[in-house]
């Protein structure tokens, strides 16, 4: 009479959405049924360009980890260990790049540091040069953008870790004769090892999958993500498949290696967890220098975005050789509202992101119920499937979805969805699964199981319990996950460039085409809109 629920339906759905497309890419990279061949793999292996792109992806990712860590760890330590005026506001401001779409950061960088950006113009003017002293291109430019947008992972993780470190451990080190630097080196940093490794993994995976920066700034520098998209856009599907498999393999190796390195779980919270002591910087000079340093840092970090806002007011064709734009108007914004073709990408992005977010949240609720409340037999498999889209770069996922849903074979679960309005929301949804599931499942774990039983004992059925009890109590988790998922989807570039059609083109694609037309004002307006929409979503989602 004992029945243990399997959770089969959800598992099948997740396999179909997540594992199946990736599996199809693997199969097609070796020709597929009927025409098995290793030729494509051989072609890849013997092509030095391919190897240099793969190597480019790997070393850029390592260098990004080092650079982002070099900025993020000291800044995180500084903000957590010392108090000074303005610490709270500044601390929140400098975490901002984390919530902005990568493409926004990239074009903001372009307007500030690019060869026709503000800084280059100033230098040219000051030294009376004929042309910009630099071109924002190649590995250096990519690294700059990566370090700028990914130091936040280290910053946030180190702050969170330090907040949990038991102050008595620091005091014990000092009693045992360690000075300030020795304490940091011998006690604090080793205690933060799990957080630092987690941030390093996140940075590595993000860099490996990074597409916007290499695509816009790469120039002749090759990385795997841009190679894949170029192969796909050029119609060389075989090469795209093999490249996708190669990138996925590197991602998998990295995950495994970092997983080994992480070893045992956090040691930062042993003992009774005495709150960590934040030191007041005593001398006024020290305090004010710290504040000054903090503000400088914040302004430096926000400068690209300020530039973006400024450029969004520049009418088309007015800013040519002048140091600063000579004219400002609301014309670009007016165009966005008045011209249906300009408004279209914005509407597209909003509805597709909304649908994808609702879908991902629904899936996360279903998964949470199955994993946490019903403890279904297949919960381990479900949990792993939910995390797959996080473990593979966005390009890989996009190619996988494009591959799976460009063939009509309903008996093996394949339909032609590429080219329809369904494909982009579906792809966004799949990318959003780990974001939504992570937060919602954690929320489910915090729910007292007795509440659900109490509702049942009072005659409430499953749906009513979900609607009246679980969802209201999961509201903070749902909002936070929804905001992050929405912000990610609305600013998506990498999936969109592989799967968009003219009618479903989202904001990111429109930014790209505006840049191609040198319509920087319009590109900036879209950038500002993306910035406002994602920051607004995050503000709403993290409201307490």
């Amino acid at each position: 009479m004992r029945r243990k629920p399997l959770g089969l339906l959800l598992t099948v759905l997740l396999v179909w959405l997540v594992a199946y497309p990736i599996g199809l890419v693997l199969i097609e990279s070796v020709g597929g049924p009927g025409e098995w061949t290793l030729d494509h793999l051989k072609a890849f292996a013997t092509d030095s360009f391919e190897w240099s792109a793969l190597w480019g992806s790997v070393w850029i990712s390592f260098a990004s980890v080092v650079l982002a860590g070099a900025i993020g760890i000291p800044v995180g330590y500084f903000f957590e260990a010392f108090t000074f005026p303005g610490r709270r506001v500044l601390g929140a401001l400098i975490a901002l790049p984390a919530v902005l779409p990568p493409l926004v950061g990239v074009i903001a960088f372009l307007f500030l540091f690019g060869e026709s950006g503000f800084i280059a113009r100033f230098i040219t003017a000051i030294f009376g040069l004929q042309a910009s002293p630099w071109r924002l291109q190649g590995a250096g430019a990519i690294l700059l953008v990566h370090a700028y947008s990914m130091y936040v992972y280290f910053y946030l993780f180190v702050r969170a870790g330090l907040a949990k470190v038991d102050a008595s451990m620091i005091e014990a080190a000092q009693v045992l004769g360690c000075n300030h630097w020795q304490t940091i080196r011998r006690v604090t940093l080793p205690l933060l090892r799990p957080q630092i490794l987690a941030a390093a993994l996140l940075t590595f995976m993000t860099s490996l999958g990074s597409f916007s920066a290499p695509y816009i700034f790469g120039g002749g520098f090759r990385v795997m993500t841009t190679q894949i998209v170029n192969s796909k856009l050029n119609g060389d599907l075989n090469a795209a498949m093999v490249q996708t498999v190669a990138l996925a393999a590197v991602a998998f190796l990295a995950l495994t290696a970092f997983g080994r390195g992480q070893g045992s779980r956090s040691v930062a919270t042993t003992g009774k967890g005495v709150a960590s002591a934040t030191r007041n910087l005593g001398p006024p000079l020290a305090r004010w220098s710290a504040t000054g340093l903090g503000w400088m840092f914040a302004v430096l970090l926000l400068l690209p975005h300020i530039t973006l806002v400024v450029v969004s007011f520049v009418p088309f064709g007015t800013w040519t050789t002048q140091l600063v734009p000579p004219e400002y108007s609301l014309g670009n914004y007016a165009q966005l509202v008045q011209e249906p073709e300009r408004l279209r990408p914005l509407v597209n992005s909003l509805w597709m992101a909304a649908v994808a977010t609702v879908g991902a949240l629904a899936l996360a609720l279903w998964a949470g119920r199955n994993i946490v409340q019903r403890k279904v037999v297949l919960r381990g498999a479900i949990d792993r499937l939910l995390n797959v889209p996080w473990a593979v770069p966005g390009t890989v996922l996009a190619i996988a979805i494009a591959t799976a849903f460009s063939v009509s074979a309903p008996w093996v679960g394949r339909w032609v969805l590429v080219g329809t309005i369904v494909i982009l929301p579906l792809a966004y949804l799949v990318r959003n699964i780990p974001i939504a599931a992570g937060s919602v499942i954690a929320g489910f774990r915090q729910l007292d199981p007795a509440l659900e039983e109490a509702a049942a004992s009072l005659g409430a059925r499953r749906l009513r319990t979900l609607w009246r009890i679980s969802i209201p109590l999961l509201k903070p988790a749902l909002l936070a996950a929804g905001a992050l998922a929405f912000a990610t989807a609305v600013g998506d570039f990498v999936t969109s460039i592989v799967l968009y059609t003219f009618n479903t083109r989202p904001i990111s694609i429109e930014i790209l085409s505006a840049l191609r037309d040198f319509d920087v004002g319009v590109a900036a307006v879209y950038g500002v809109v993306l910035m406002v929409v994602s920051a607004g979503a995050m503000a709403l989602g993290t409201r307490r």
Partner: protein
Amino acid sequence: MSEAGLRLEHLTKQFDDHVAVRDLTLDVPQGSVLALLGPSGSGKTTTLRLIAGFETPDKGRVLVDGEDVTALGPADRHFGMVFQHYALFPHLNVGENVAFGLGRSLSADERRQRVAESLLLVDLRGFEDRRVDELSGGQQQRVAVARAVAPRPRVLLFDEPLSNLDPALRERTRRELRAALDKVHVTTVFVTHEQEEAFALGDVVAVLRNGALEQVSAPTELYERPASHFVATFVGRATTLKGVMVASDRVRVATGIEWPVTSPVALQEGQPVSVTVRPEMFLPSEDGGLTGTVREVRYTGARAFFEVDTQLGNVEFEADVHTADVGDTVWLTARTGTAFPRRGK
């Protein structure tokens, strides 16, 4: 067997290789209160969850007023349950919590009326708009009771109803709970590991051990005529000694020392037995009987418990505080004990 009330028939529930409840059959007459008493791991909470429908039995049936509800989910059983930590919905206020289980067939006025009645029953009139996290532990417990009784359930279930309260509040809440139960007159089952609580609240107490029923009786019967050695020692205090039956109602515990005993089973002369004697059943005497030295005295007021080292082992008796001091030699006889068959000599 009466048709009305709750009946458990041969309930069995196994988790992996551990049998939590084995072949449990119990009747709870309409309107009476049954306490499920047992040490932790005895299967009492599993039994409660089987009754509620949160667990499905591997074997056996649950019947209410003759209707088999085993296949029904918890939502369809029309039972009320008060959870150990109350499980009040934190995002709903007191009134909304109490109204949660009321059917949609009721009008808004009827619902309001029913909520008010239920809150009145637990002495929380006018608390409808309070937030549940503003209430004290005792008040939360009473809201949980009001919520469980508001839909007029066929059976009311309590999981360790008082364990979450501090001792001072427990005594008062117990009295109030019993009064409320008397008023609603619903068939009730509650789980507890505390004998005092079981005796104060239960009309009938069922003692469980390793998932099986040891005895089900009224509290006095359970105490005075335990059905097993386990019940005799788990319910109330008792000293256990070895002995041999010398008649059907007399036991010899040592040469020349014989006491009257009762037994739940027929015993024959010469049969080896375990004898349990309640502390208050020992009589200190001037001479004769079991002798020993007082090792420890625990005062409880006018009376005291005395721990005595005897040739047969440790013996505990209760008497006036002035009966003896530590180090004194005492002689004890037993007015009566309970004998249980023992294997071997």
